[in-house]
C-alpha cells in the first residue's frame, strides 16, 4: 500500500513490496532491493542494494488519535518524519508542516511557562504558540503552519517530556 513520507517541507510517495522473499522499496516510482533487520525495538539495520544504513526510530507521542500519522526521530533527535495516508497528506496541507501535520511537539523536557493561543485561534506560520522553560532558559515555540488551532494538548505550568504533543494546528486550505 502506497503511503506518503513527510520530511520537513518535502513529501514522497513510498511503498514496501514483498514478493518471493524479496523486499523492495519503491521511492517515487524507483525500486531498490532492501533487507531489513530489527536489531532491538526501534533500531533497524537496513541494506539498500548492499549499502548499510542504521536507523533508530524514537516514536514521538501523538495526541491526535485520528492522525494515522507516524512521527519518528533519528537518534540524534534532530529530524522529524511522518508517514501518512496519501489522502490525509493532501488534506492536512503538509506542504508547510514543521514537525508533522501541524502538530507542534516539545523539543525538550521542560515546563510550559505561557500558552499564547487557544483552540479556534487563527495563527500564521512563524507565530509563537507558547513559551517553555528548561534549565532556567526560556524558549519560544513557533508554528510552521498557517491555519486554525485545533487542540491545545497542555496547560500552563505542566511538565512535559521530549516529543510530547503541545498544539495541533489545522492547515488552512491552500
Amino acid at each position, binding site marked *: 500500500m502506497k503511503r506518503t513520507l513527510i520530511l520537513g517541507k518535502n513529501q514522497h510517495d513510498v511503498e514496501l513490496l514483498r514478493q518471493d522473499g524479496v523486499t523492495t*522499496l519503491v521511492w517515487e516510482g524507483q525500486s531498490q532491493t532492501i533487507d531489513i533487520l530489527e536489531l532491538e525495538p526501534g533500531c*533497524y539495520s537496513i541494506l539498500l542494494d548492499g549499502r548499510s544504513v542504521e536507523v533508530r526510530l524514537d516514536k514521538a507521542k501523538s495526541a491526535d488519535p485520528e492522525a494515522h500519522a507516524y512521527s519518528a526521530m*533519528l537518534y*540524534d533527535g534532530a529530524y522529524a518524519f511522518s508517514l501518512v495516508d496519501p489522502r490525509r497528506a493532501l488534506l492536512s496541507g503538509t506542504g508547510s508542516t514543521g514537525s508533522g501535520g501541524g502538530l507542534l511537539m516539545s523539543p525538550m523536557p521542560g515546563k510550559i511557562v505561557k500558552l499564547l493561543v487557544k483552540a479556534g485561534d487563527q495563527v500564521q506560520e512563524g507565530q509563537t504558540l507558547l513559551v517553555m522553560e*528548561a*534549565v532556567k532558559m526560556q524558549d519560544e515555540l513557533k508554528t510552521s503552519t498557517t491555519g486554525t488551532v485545533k487542540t491545545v494538548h497542555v496547560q500552563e505550568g505542566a511538565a512535559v517530556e521530549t516529543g510530547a504533543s503541545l498544539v495541533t494546528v489545522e492547515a488552512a486550505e491552500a
Partner: protein
Amino acid sequence: MPVTKILIANRGEIAIRVIRTCREMGIPTVAVYSEADRSALHVRMATEAYFIGPAPARESYLVIEKILDVCKRSGADAVHPGYGFLSENAEAARAFQAAGITFIGPDPDCIVKMGSKTAAREVAIAAGCPVVPGIQETMGDEALLEASKKIGFPVMLKAAMGGGGKGMRLVHHPDEFTSSLARARGEALSSFGDDSVYVEKAILQPRHIEIQVFSDTHGNHVYMHERECSVQRRHQKVIEEAPSPHVTPEMRKAMGEAALQVARAVNYVGAGTVEFLADADRNFYFLEMNTRLQVEHPVTEWITGLDLVKWQILVARGEKLPLTQDQIPLNGWAMECRVYAEDPDKNFMPSPGRITFLRTPSGRNVRDDSGVYEGAEVPMFYDPMISKLSTWGSTRLEAIERMRGALTEYRIGGIRHNIAFHEALMDYAPFREGALHTGILDKPFWKRKEQGPDLKFAVAVAMLHELETEQRRAT
C-alpha cells in the same frame, strides 16, 4: 602527608577520571552525591558513596561542612576537588587543612592570590611574565574611561573576581564605554557578588593558549607544554588540542618559562594552568592562573604519556616530581571535543533528560571520559557536559580524522547533543588549517546536514516496516 583514602568532592566525568587513577594506585575512593545523583556513575564506581543533600550544588556539593562530615564518617584522609565546585575555594582548602585532611591542590593563600585577577596580574608583572597592557586597579567609572583612552581603544572590560567569560566586554569606541561598563558591572555583581571591573588593551583575534605546570613541595617546577583552547563559544572552550599549531619550539620554551616564573613566585604546589593570550605575531600575555586540574588535561596526557591525577596524588603525599623538565615528552598531537547535552539547533540550549541509548566510540587512540551510561539521567542542575572525547594522532590531521571517525561512532539517544556540531567543525576549513582565534565560532558556519538519500530511504523502510508490524498486531 598520608593519602590513603580519597574523597572526591565532585561529580560527572571528572569524578570518574579520579576514581580510575585511584583504582590503578590501589587507593579506595569516597563519592558524595546529591538528591539528583543517586543513580550517577560516580556513585556506582566509587568504593563508597554518601548522600550530601538536595540537588542544587549550593546545598550539597558546595557545602564544606557536609564534605568534612563525610570525610569523618568514611575515614577519608584526602580530598580531590576536581574542577569547579570547591576546587578554587580557599575557605574549603583551609577547612580541610584545619581538620587534618589533605587538600589535593595548592596552598589556600595561593588560591586567594590567583583567584583575584588584579592580584594575579601583579604577581605576573613582579615575576617578569608579560601581561596585557592595562590598568590593573579597579576604579570608578570616570577614571576607567580616562585610563581606557590612555591605553587606546579597543579595550576590554573585565570583572576583577571573574572567570568563564562572565563580566567581560569589548569596547571599540569611547561612545559605547558608559553603557558597556554598566553591563559589565551588572554581570560581575550577579555572577561574583562584586562589581569591581578593570580595563585592558583588547587583543583582536587572540588565541587562547595555556601552559600546564606542575610543582611539588620541594620547590621543583616543570611545564608540560601548551594547550590550544582558542575554539570557544561565548568564552567557553569547545575544542582543545595539544600542542598548538601556532606555537614554535622557541615560543613554547618562552611561554613555559614565563609560566614557571609565575608558579615559582607563589610557591605553587600541584597541577596548575597559566593561561595566555597570544597575538598573530606570537606575542603572549598572562591572562590568569587556574589553581586546579583543568577540564582539558587529557590532551596533555596524550602528548606526554603522563597521568596528571597520579602526579597530583604523588605531590599531595609530599613526593618529588617524577620527572625533570627535559624528561617531559612531547609526542604527536591530541584533540578533545566536549560533548554536551545541549541543542545546537536551538542556540545550544541545555537538554537534560534520560539517555535512552548510548554507544561510545572505541578503537585505536580514542579516549572517552564519560560521566554517564545508558539509562542515566542528565540532571538539569549541573553543567550539561556529559563526556570529553579525545583522540591522538601522529600528526594534527591524523588526530582530526580519528576524531571525525570517533564522532561518527558516538550514538546518544533521548537527549539533544552536540556531536553533529563537532563533526561539522572537523570539516570546517579554518579549523582544519589551524587558523584559530577565540572568535572562530562567532561566524555562523554550521548548518545541520541534510540527510543523504540513503538515510531517507532507510527511514522510509523502517517506518513502513513498523507500520506493517503494528497493523499486523492490531488485526
